[in-house]
């Protein structure tokens, strides 16, 4: 019964608004654009934020990544001929971390060498990663064929290699052909498995894996490729001695990630005279990205809020004009026995119908804009359900806020004077 009356009130409001279709449409234009920009901006913000977070999650939120870095002073020295730059993480650092931190569950050494991989006539430049089986527990990538490296691949002269999907396609031509022998630099290795790679970058941090990786045992990498690398660049040779290029550490509880990173940093300082490593915490980057997104949303929301405010003022303006125009009607209704609250209700419903209609049209606009942005710029956008609810809520709120004053003005008209109004 009450619902029926309410439906009738809304119907009545709609009717009187449809009496002036163009005027009503122009009136809600402000709200349409306001709500449209709220939805669109939130979608763009959400899309950017999710993309950043997805990238960071690939790094592993429970991981700490320690990377060898050429110290500043060595960068300058390399200009001199035949200078051997010695820097980076030590083999011993792995054991030190493993034994010093109770919260650390896995410690994975990473040694990198860039060599050509060869299979028959096919060849490609590979990033050979000498590591331990734990790598595959920390850098969680789907296994496409075969198996990851196991403990037995670490012993003796077991020559097992795991390729990435990308590398396997290039070298093996067919991705499922495991068991073939690949030449990596001077050595021969048997392909035992193929994994997916998700190379990418987030917050200035490279993912541990790359598309051109080939994973072998650390022991084998040390024996075959040693610690010293030569590189010939324009005019000068660069000679570097690096034991480990990266150590990836996993912490059991996400709460301890940051404190463990701090502890590792402090411990490494004792053993490294130069600042030749960097400790990165993906989790901290994640939190930072979330924080950034929140700020981003607030800024975008405020801008959109201003356009909604303008829209609301437009509605109020028209409703005030409408009250003046319909003074006679108000007088008639009051004479017949309508109370002030009835008049307020009538005009308020009209304003809310106006602004909510604007809200819904605005949502349609706001949904279509991001898909256009995505199509033409490739920027990811995500429309969340809550942003739609928020928009409808806000547009209704705008109706109430800006409709109240005209409605009260209408209700406070003296019925006798209103009846005489022409």
């Amino acid at each position: 019964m009450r619902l029926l009356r309410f439906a009738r009130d809304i119907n009545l409001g709609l009717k009187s608004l449809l009496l002036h279709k163009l005027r009503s449409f122009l009136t809600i234009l402000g709200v349409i654009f306001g709500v449209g920009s709220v939805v669109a901006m939130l979608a763009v913000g959400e899309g950017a934020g999710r993309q950043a977070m997805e990238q960071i999650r690939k790094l592993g939120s429970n991981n700490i990544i320690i990377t060898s870095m050429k110290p500043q002073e060595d960068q300058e020295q390399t200009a001199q001929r035949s200078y051997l730059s010695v820097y980076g993480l030590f083999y011993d650092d792995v054991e030190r971390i493993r034994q010093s931190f109770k919260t650390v569950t896995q410690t994975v050494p990473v040694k990198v060498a860039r060599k050509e991989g060869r299979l028959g006539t096919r060849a490609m430049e590979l990033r050979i990663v000498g590591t331990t089986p734990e790598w595959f527990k920390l850098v969680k990538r789907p296994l496409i064929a075969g198996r990851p490296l196991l403990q037995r691949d670490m012993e003796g002269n077991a020559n097992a290699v795991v390729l990435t999907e990308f590398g396997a396609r290039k070298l093996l031509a067919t991705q499922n052909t495991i068991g073939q022998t690949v030449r990596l630099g001077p050595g021969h290795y048997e392909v035992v498995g193929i994994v997916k790679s998700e190379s990418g970058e987030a917050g200035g941090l490279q993912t541990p894996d790359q598309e051109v990786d080939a994973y072998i045992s650390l022991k084998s990498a040390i024996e075959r490729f040693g610690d010293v690398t030569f590189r010939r660049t324009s005019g000068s040779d660069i000679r570097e001695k690096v034991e480990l290029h990266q150590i990836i550490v996993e912490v059991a509880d996400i709460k301890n990630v940051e404190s463990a990173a701090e502890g590792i940093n402090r411990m490494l300082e004792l053993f490294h005279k130069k600042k030749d490593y960097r400790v990165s915490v993906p989790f901290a980057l994640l939190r930072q990205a979330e924080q950034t997104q929140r700020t981003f949303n607030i800024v975008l929301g405020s801008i959109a809020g201003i356009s909604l405010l303008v829209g609301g003022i437009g509605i109020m303006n028209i409703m005030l004009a409408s009250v003046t125009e319909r003074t006679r009607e108000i007088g008639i209704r009051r004479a017949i026995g309508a109370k002030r609250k009835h008049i307020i209700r009538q005009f308020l419903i009209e304003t809310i119908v106006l602004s909510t209609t604007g809200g819904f049209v605005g949502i349609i606009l706001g949904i279509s804009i991001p898909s256009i942005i995505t199509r033409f710029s490739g920027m990811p956008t995500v429309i969340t359900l809550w942003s739609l609810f928020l928009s409808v809520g806000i547009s209704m709120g705008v109706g109430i806020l800006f409709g109240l004053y005209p409605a009260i003005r209408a209700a406070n008209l003296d019925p006798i004077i209103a009846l005489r109004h022409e």
Partner: protein
Amino acid sequence: MTPENNFVIKIENMTKVYQMGKTEVRALGGISFSIDRGGYWAIMGPSGSGKSTLLNQLGCLDRPTSGRYWLEGQDVSELNDNELSDVRLRRIGFIFQSFNLIQQLTVRENIEMPLYYLGYSPHESHLKASQFAEMVGLGERLDHRPMELSGGQQQRVAIARALVNDPAILLADEPTGNLDSKTGEQIMELLGELNRNGKTIIMVTHEPYIAEHARHQLHVLDGLIDRIEEKG
């Protein structure tokens, strides 16, 4: 039972003073009279005599500055805006010179309006509107807009709207003022018939031949009752 109960309207010493800038305008200077149930009264007087002010008072559109007004035995002279609205809604029916129908609503919706504020269900008010439109001879025109009707028909709609809440008094402000004499006569016949069926009618007019329809003529002059004439 209080003695007031014999009257539909009893007015005692009613004054109305308007503040116009710094000067006070005494629109009603202390009026007393009473109207019994089923009466048919015409309020007459030149413009500025206070007859419109009196009608507004009788219609509970305004409160008197002083004095008492009992409508069906209830003192309504000191009610607040909300209570006065309720009195208008339940006990008073208005007919105006310019009909005062709401143009964007249909005939049916205009007649239904008091029922809407009374809280009738759509179904009930639908039935009642049809019934009253039938009574004033407009059963076929329920879905028309006022603009599509003649003046006489519009006034009939207004009468149906004024009666649909079964009011104690029907107030008519120059009900034939916007109509030609023939149509005006038809409207007066309708009002006469309503009165014969027991409805109390009070109308304001300055046309003596319209006032002839009423049994009592109350002449107002300078905010006071000049005389009351009763038709033999």
